C-alpha cells in the first residue's frame, strides 16, 4: 500500500511541476539519460523482476479463472516494463498511473474518478500537417499509452522508446516461456544447464 501511495505522490508532483503541461517538451538529447532496451543487463533485470512479480500472482490465486490470470500476467509484465523506464518516459508513467487508478477504484469500490486532463488540449499544428498525416498521428497517439494530447515531436520520441521497450518485453517473455515450456533442442546441443543463460540473451543480435 505504501508503494501505491508513493506512486500517487509522484503523479501529483508531476502535475505540480507541470511536466505534462509544459510548452517546451522536446528535451536536449544529450542531457537525457535513456534506457538502453537492447542491453543484456536491462533484459536480465526485467526478467528477474518479472519472475518476482509472477511469483506474487501465483501466491494469490484470487480466481482460478483463466481470463483474470491472463489479465494479471499482462499487467505485471507491463508494470515491470514501465518501472524499468524509471519515470523517464510519458508512456511508462501513464501505464503505472492507469494501473494505480484501477487498483484504487477496485479497493474503494466506487466509480473510477474521472481523469482531468489538460484543460486546453494541445492540438497538432494544423498548418503543418496534412489531414492524412494528422489522422495517422492520432492513431499512433492512441497506441502509445498516455500520449493522446502530446505534441508531434514528443509523440515520435515516446513511440521510439516504447517500441524498443516492447521489443525487449517480447524477448524476455519469450525466453521465460521457453524456459518453462522446456527448451527446444539447441543447435549446439547444449544441456539444460545453459537454459538459464538463454533467459538473459536477446534473441536477435542487438543492432
Amino acid at each position, binding site marked *: 500500500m505504501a508503494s501505491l501511495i508513493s506512486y500517487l505522490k509522484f503523479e501529483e508532483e508531476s502535475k505540480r511541476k507541470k511536466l505534462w503541461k509544459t*510548452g517546451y517538451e522536446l528535451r536536449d538529447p544529450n542531457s537525457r539519460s535513456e534506457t538502453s532496451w537492447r542491453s543484456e543487463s536491462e533484459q536480465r533485470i526485467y526478467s528477474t523482476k518479472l519472475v518476482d512479480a509472477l511469483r506474487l500472482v501465483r501466491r494469490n490465486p484470487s480466481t482460478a479463472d483463466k481470463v483474470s490470470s491472463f489479465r494479471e500476467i499482462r499487467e505485471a509484465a507491463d508494470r515491470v516494463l514501465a518501472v524499468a523506464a524509471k519515470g523517464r518516459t510519458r508512456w511508462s508513467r501513464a501505464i503505472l498511473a492507469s494501473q494505480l487508478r484501477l487498483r484504487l477504484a477496485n479497493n474503494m469500490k466506487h466509480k473510477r474518478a474521472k481523469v482531468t486532463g489538460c484543460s486546453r488540449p494541445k492540438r497538432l499544428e494544423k498548418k503543418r500537417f496534412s489531414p492524412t*498525416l494528422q489522422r495517422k498521428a492520432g492513431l499512433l497517439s492512441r497506441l502509445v499509452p498516455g500520449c493522446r494530447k502530446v505534441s508531434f515531436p514528443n509523440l515520435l520520441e515516446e513511440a521510439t522508446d516504447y517500441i524498443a521497450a*516492447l521489443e525487449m518485453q517480447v524477448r524476455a517473455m519469450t525466453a521465460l516461456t521457453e*524456459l518453462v515450456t522446456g527448451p527446444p533442442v539447441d543447435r549446439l546441443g547444449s544441456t539444460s544447464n545453459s537454459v538459464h543463460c538463454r533467459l538473459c540473451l536477446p534473441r536477435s543480435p542487438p543492432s
Partner: protein
Amino acid sequence: MSSRRSRSRQQSGVSSNITDEQITDLVSKLQQLIPEIRNRRSNKVSASKVLQETCNYIRSLHREVDDLSDRLSDLLATTDTDSAQAAIIRSLLM
C-alpha cells in the same frame, strides 16, 4: 484577459519553434526501428508510411505480448502434474 491570451499565444509560439529538421530527424529514427521499413532499404519513405508502419508494428508487438501472457497463464495453471516441467515452474515461480 488580453494578457492571458497573449501569454497563451506566446506558449504556442514556443512549441512551433520545433523545426522541420527535428521532425524529419525523429521520423528517420523511428524508421530505423521498424523492421518492415528497415529491410526494404528504400531511402524514400514518406512520413505517412512511417507512421502507418509504426502503428502496425506496435499493434503486432502488443499481440505478441498478449499471446505470451496467455501462454504463461496457461503454463502457470497447469502445475498439477509431476512432470519435469512442473518442477521447473515450481522452482522458478513459486
